């Protein structure tokens, strides 16, 4: 494990220089010296984070509850502003939400008075791209396997289907980056697995950058190319590791999946128990 860490340490050293160029297909993210404090008395939630995410990468932010991973994701989405430091996407400092980076939440939060198609079209409507709805929405609903459900009321769908509508809603404005805040944790195991694989596949097909917040080690192994393990109080990146699995190995029965999962679980447990070496960031 020390070897892995050393290797990752080197990688972070070498990538600290920002690559300030817009990349087609996926967003490039640079987080610079980012710290966050909600109330002074509570101390820092996030402490001096510094990392980059390459375009088209699938990165998991793994950590226990309260480590600030969800706050970090909100900052990447521009929904919260960090107390210190900045988030740079494709060379521009993030100052607010944008249809170029869309966040998906734990609850699909569809509008229950609308059909599936209308829900999926919200992003286009809000960005004055209503002209694209007629062509784009059927395509997107097909992509998430909900084509025949376009005219159904959102409330009549199962939890997994609703989350697929939320995915379609996020994908419709053609974002460069998707930010997922534990979006599958309320689903049953079977539905969760199929969505995890589908979201990874769709992100890879479209070349999107995908950032997933999770506390589920197996979710990180199934979906991510790279995992940032966060320490709590204050939130720091305690480990930065690569999941080198082929797509067909990303299922629980594959041998290499199990060894990667065991390795990540060990890192996660070490970090959680505070046994980890000094934080990297």
């Amino acid at each position, binding site marked *: 494990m020390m070897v892995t860490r050393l290797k990752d340490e080197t990688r972070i050293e070498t990538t600290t220089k920002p690559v300030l160029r817009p990349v087609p297909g996926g967003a490039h993210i640079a987080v610079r010296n980012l710290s966050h404090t909600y109330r002074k008395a509570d101390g820092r939630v996030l402490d001096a984070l510094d990392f980059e995410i390459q375009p088209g990468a699938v990165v998991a932010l793994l950590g226990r509850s309260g480590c600030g991973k969800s706050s970090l994701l909100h900052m990447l*989405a521009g929904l919260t502003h960090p107390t210190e430091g900045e988030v740079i996407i494709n060379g521009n400092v993030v100052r607010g939400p944008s249809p170029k980076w869309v966040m998906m*939440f734990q609850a699909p*939060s569809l509008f229950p008075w609308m059909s599936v198609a209308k829900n999926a079209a*919200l*992003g286009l409507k*809000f960005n004055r791209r209503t002209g694209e709805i007629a062509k784009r929405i059927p395509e997107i609903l097909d992509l998430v396997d909900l084509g025949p459900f376009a005219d159904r*009321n959102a*409330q009549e769908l199962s939890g997994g289907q609703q989350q697929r509508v939320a995915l379609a*809603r996020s994908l419709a404005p053609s974002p460069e980056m998707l930010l997922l805040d534990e979006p599958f944790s309320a689903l049953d195991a079977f539905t969760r697995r199929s969505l995890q694989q589908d979201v990874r596949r769709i992100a890879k097909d479209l070349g999107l950058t995908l950032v997933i917040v999770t506390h589920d080690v197996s979710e990180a192994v199934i979906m991510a190319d790279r995992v940032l393990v966060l320490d709590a109080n204050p939130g720091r990146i305690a480990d930065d590791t690569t999941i080198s699995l082929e797509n067909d190995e990303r299922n629980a029965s594959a041998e290499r999946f199990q060894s990667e999962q065991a390795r990540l679980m060990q890192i996660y447990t070490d970090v959680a128990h505070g046994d980890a070496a000094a934080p990297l960031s």
Partner: protein
Amino acid sequence: MSLGADTYRGRAALALPKLAWFRGVANAVIGIAVLVGLWWLGGVAVANNPNMYAFADFAPGPTLSALRDMVGSGEVVGMAWPSLYRVGAGMLIAVAFGVPMGILIGRVAILREITNVPFQFLRMISPLSWMPIAVMVFATWDGAIVFLIAAAAVWPVLFSTAAGVRRIDPAWLKVARNLGANVVHMLFTVILPAIAVDILTGLRLALGVAWVVLVPAEYLGVTSGLGYSINDARDTLDYSRLAAVVVVIGIIGFTLDYLFMLAIKHFNWVRSAD
């Protein structure tokens, strides 16, 4: 309506066959029959009482015949139209003030805290107690009546709107913001559809109060409307006509309430979990 909603309704209709509809209608007929029966008994008692027989025209027979004449001659339209206009105008003012104010109070905590006591205080004042002031302030009788109705109707609309706004799932607003919604989108795509039923429920309650306030308000100087017709019939001792106007007031009130109920059903997006 979506295909799915129809399927749902279809399933509900299968689970409770037409028997339920028939039973509802039959029970309503029984209820009306009991009411008319009691009315008839009262009429018989009055007719047989030497001190009261002058009021025998209140009985169902004379009343319904007066009502038939009123409807047949179209007089009922001329009678009801000014009243409907006044209630409509009053309700419109109540909506124009109550809905935006309700949204603000629901969204802004400080505004809610500041307005809570004064609004609850004003709400508890009978709208009719504004009558002398309204008469002084407004140049026309119509203006005074519309004001009284608006003063009665505004509170249910305002409080119901505010309560609806406070029940909006914050995640809906977060999702909308995340997808790039501006203030206009927030209002017309998220907030108003989300609280449509609350506004309509407030309007339904408001209508109940407004319709009650209307009749005494029309005892004021006006020479048209249902309240005026009651007063007029009393003064001319035409009791069958007076009772007929009472029936007309009941029928119109019931119909308006029913229309609001249909609108609420139409805009209600909550699907039952069956």
